């Protein structure tokens, strides 16, 4: 029986089992995003002090579930789909060990459900970080462990597929840049999951009484080797997708394969560090180690991100210019397909990730500046720019691209899809900026009541802090609305979207169910050839001057904001 189908619109070849796995993983991810989004509404409406929706116990429970479902389950399920796509589909290879991949998927589902049940039962409102000695129910940890093992299996299936593709000679030359980026993500994921096992497994044993003590500081240090590095999986994954999207939409090619790949390599070498970001103000951690670790050894991973920040839009600019959009610095950008949610989603993700997420991350990760930021609401504001917009919106943009290609359905309510990235980005940006502001005024994160109702002593935040939390709340509600629009479009497309494959039956193309057998009519796709060579002409001026100006604008914001924060730090009580 033939294993592959070719998508008549995109030309991608899909291996039958890889296709099903991509679909189920993507669908599972979206389901967890739905849960996370509903919970987000509870969180933000409680932090908006004038609304103060939920009671304290429910708030902490909802916040625990929001963090885990969004950051871990949504993102990692989707990443599994991305890994299978970047290996099997992009390399035109069959998937290695699909049985294992299904087993991994099953473990991930069981783990995710188990963990959610634990949180729902109410004795595990410990936040996603679950710092010891605060204890959750054993199945809280067990769920996370099973989920991680499942994800680890997925990583090995990805690696196996790369090997298989090489053996079968399904492609000529080196693996494409996008696959290289996915490989980066996968390698980081394996390191990360190993740290996770080192700390979560003993914690599980402790929760069932086999171990009677876990050092609280050691837990934090190892947990963050998991927690921080896992964010770099997301960065590597979404940067790869940026390259993919610019390639598909504009026919863009990397400005230089060498530079882009080198930047991914820097991620592998240095992103493992930076767990210190989270323990900069912990007791007894040496300054030398903090400086080395928090800066990824002299900011070499930041360097890598700054390089991608130039080469991703640069590649797009070069492609657009070659199509004749050469007027001025920015015609290539003005004439981009702003009505296509794949493009607008990608581009907003890039800008918000770089300008807000990137800059605030480096600033608050500076050893001393962390003193004025640690555990304030500034921190969630920062990572909503990186992961809730950077990663999530990129994945949303990719979903719009994949619905026709992978699921063979036309987008449902295209006008809504068109608006969605705008609404989501606008709402989230408002929320992020105002929560950054509130954090600067000292408002804490993970805090039910900024009025301190019932406290024996009293304290009042300045009125501006309340105002900022309120505007942030409005932005957050708009963000949730944007998220809901995404879900309406995706779920609607799968259920009601026009079938692009006339032979598909009622449920075919939905979830893991393959399309009609007749569609899989390719025994072995033709070998994937190398890209057309081009003349490397580096004699002239800049190939992408507009992007260079954008990059300089980023640098100026960066420098100014960095300086402002040192200045703020210098005004607080001397400590040493």
């Amino acid at each position: 029986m033939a294993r592959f189908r070719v998508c008549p619109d995109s030309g991608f070849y899909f291996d039958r089992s890889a296709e099903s796995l991509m679909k189920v993983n993507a669908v599972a991810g979206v389901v967890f995003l739905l849960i996370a989004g509903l919970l987000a509404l509870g969180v933000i409406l409680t932090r908006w002090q004038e609304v103060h929706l939920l009671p304290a116990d429910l708030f902490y429970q909802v916040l625990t579930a929001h963090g885990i479902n969004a950051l871990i389950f949504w993102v990692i399920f989707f990443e599994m789909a991305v890994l299978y796509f970047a290996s099997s589909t992009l390399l035109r290879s069959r998937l290695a060990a699909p049985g294992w991949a299904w087993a991994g998927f099953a473990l991930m589902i069981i783990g995710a459900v188990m963990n959610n049940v634990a949180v729902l039962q109410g004795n595990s409102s410990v936040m996603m970080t679950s710092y010891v000695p605060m204890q959750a129910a054993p199945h809280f940890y067990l769920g996370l462990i099973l989920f991680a093992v499942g994800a680890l299996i997925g990583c090995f299936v990805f690696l196996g597929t790369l090997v298989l593709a090489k053996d079968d000679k399904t492609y000529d030359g080196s693996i494409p840049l996008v696959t290289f980026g996915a490989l980066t993500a996968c390698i980081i994921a394996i390191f990360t999951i190993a740290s996770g096992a080192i700390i979560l497994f003993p914690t599980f044993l402790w929760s069932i009484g086999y171990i009677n003590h876990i050092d609280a500081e050691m837990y934090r240090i190892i947990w963050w080797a998991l927690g921080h590095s896992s964010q770099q999986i997301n960065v590597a994954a979404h940067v790869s997708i940026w390259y993919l999207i610019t390639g598909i939409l504009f026919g863009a090619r990397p400005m230089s394969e060498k530079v882009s790949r080198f930047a991914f390599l820097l991620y592998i070498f240095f992103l493992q560090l930076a767990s210190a970001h989270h323990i900069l103000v912990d007791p007894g951690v040496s300054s030398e180690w903090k400086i080395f670790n928090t800066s990824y050894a002299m900011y070499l991973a930041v360097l890598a991100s700054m390089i991608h920040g130039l080469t991703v839009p640069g590649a797009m600019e070069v492609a657009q210019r070659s199509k004749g959009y050469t007027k001025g610095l920015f015609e290539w950008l003005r004439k981009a397909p702003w009505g296509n949610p794949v493009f607008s989603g990608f581009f907003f993700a890039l800008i918000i990730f770089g300008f807000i997420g990137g800059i605030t991350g480096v600033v608050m990760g500076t050893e001393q500046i962390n003193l004025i930021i640690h555990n304030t609401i500034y921190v969630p504001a920062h990572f909503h720019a990186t992961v809730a917009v950077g990663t999530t919106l990129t994945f949303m943009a990719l979903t719009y691209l994949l619905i026709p290609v992978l699921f063979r359905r036309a987008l449902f309510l295209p006008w809504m899809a068109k608006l969605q990235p705008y609404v989501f980005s606008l709402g989230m940006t408002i929320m992020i900026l105002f929560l950054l502001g509130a954090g600067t005024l000292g408002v804490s994160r993970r805090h039910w009541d900024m009025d301190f109702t019932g406290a024996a002593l009293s304290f009042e935040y300045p009125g501006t802090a309340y105002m900022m939390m309120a505007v942030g709340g409005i932005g957050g509600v708009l963000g949730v609305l944007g998220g809901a629009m995404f879900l309406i479009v995706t779920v609607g497309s799968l259920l009601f979207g026009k079938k692009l494959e006339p032979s598909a039956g009622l449920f075919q193309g939905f979830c893991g169910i393959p399309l009609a057998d007749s569609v899989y009519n390719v025994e072995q796709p033709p070998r994937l050839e190398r890209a057309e060579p081009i003349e490397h002409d580096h004699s002239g001026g800049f190939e992408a001057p507009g992007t260079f100006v954008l990059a300089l604008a980023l640098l100026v914001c960066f420098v100014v904001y960095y300086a402002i924060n040192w200045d703020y730090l210098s005004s607080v009580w001397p400590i040493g």
Partner: protein
Amino acid sequence: MSSFLPPADRIWWNVPVGKQEIIWAGIALVWCLIMFFMMPYWHVYGKQNLSTEAYQTNAEKYGESVEAFVAEYQTGVEEQSGMPIVTPPAGSDIYMLGRLWQWYPILNLEKGETYRLHLGSMDWNHGFSLQPVNINLQVVPGYEMVINVTPDQAGEFTVVCNEYCGIGHHTMLGKIYVKEN
């Protein structure tokens, strides 16, 4: 198209790099180095650096030191909360502990003096967030952290707990009074 196709040049690492990328990578590298050296620079010339002095301890031991400190220097009681107010000599070792859900005791300090502030937790992680100054420290059970602090403003300051520590987390406040001298 080659972002998702195998690169045109088999030996992609030998292809020359464009001027623009080299210049940008150079600028970015310089900025990264500046940011890196800013941290050691601040250790030498800045006034806000976290000390790394810390001791392993346990709730019992740490609690005893705090009680001894309170017994020695208590000068009053805060009415609203019944919490002891402690006025230690200028420049001495001072103690505060976090527990579910209070920062204990209330400290009465003098502006411009440098104190050795000991911080510890009796149970879970807590967050020492001094407001409105906005200095934030992690207080981890099992560890006694010692920092040198020099209040340079007079007034009433509040310690908010900013690490989630259970259902009463939002009621966990403490006070530091600083008077002109």
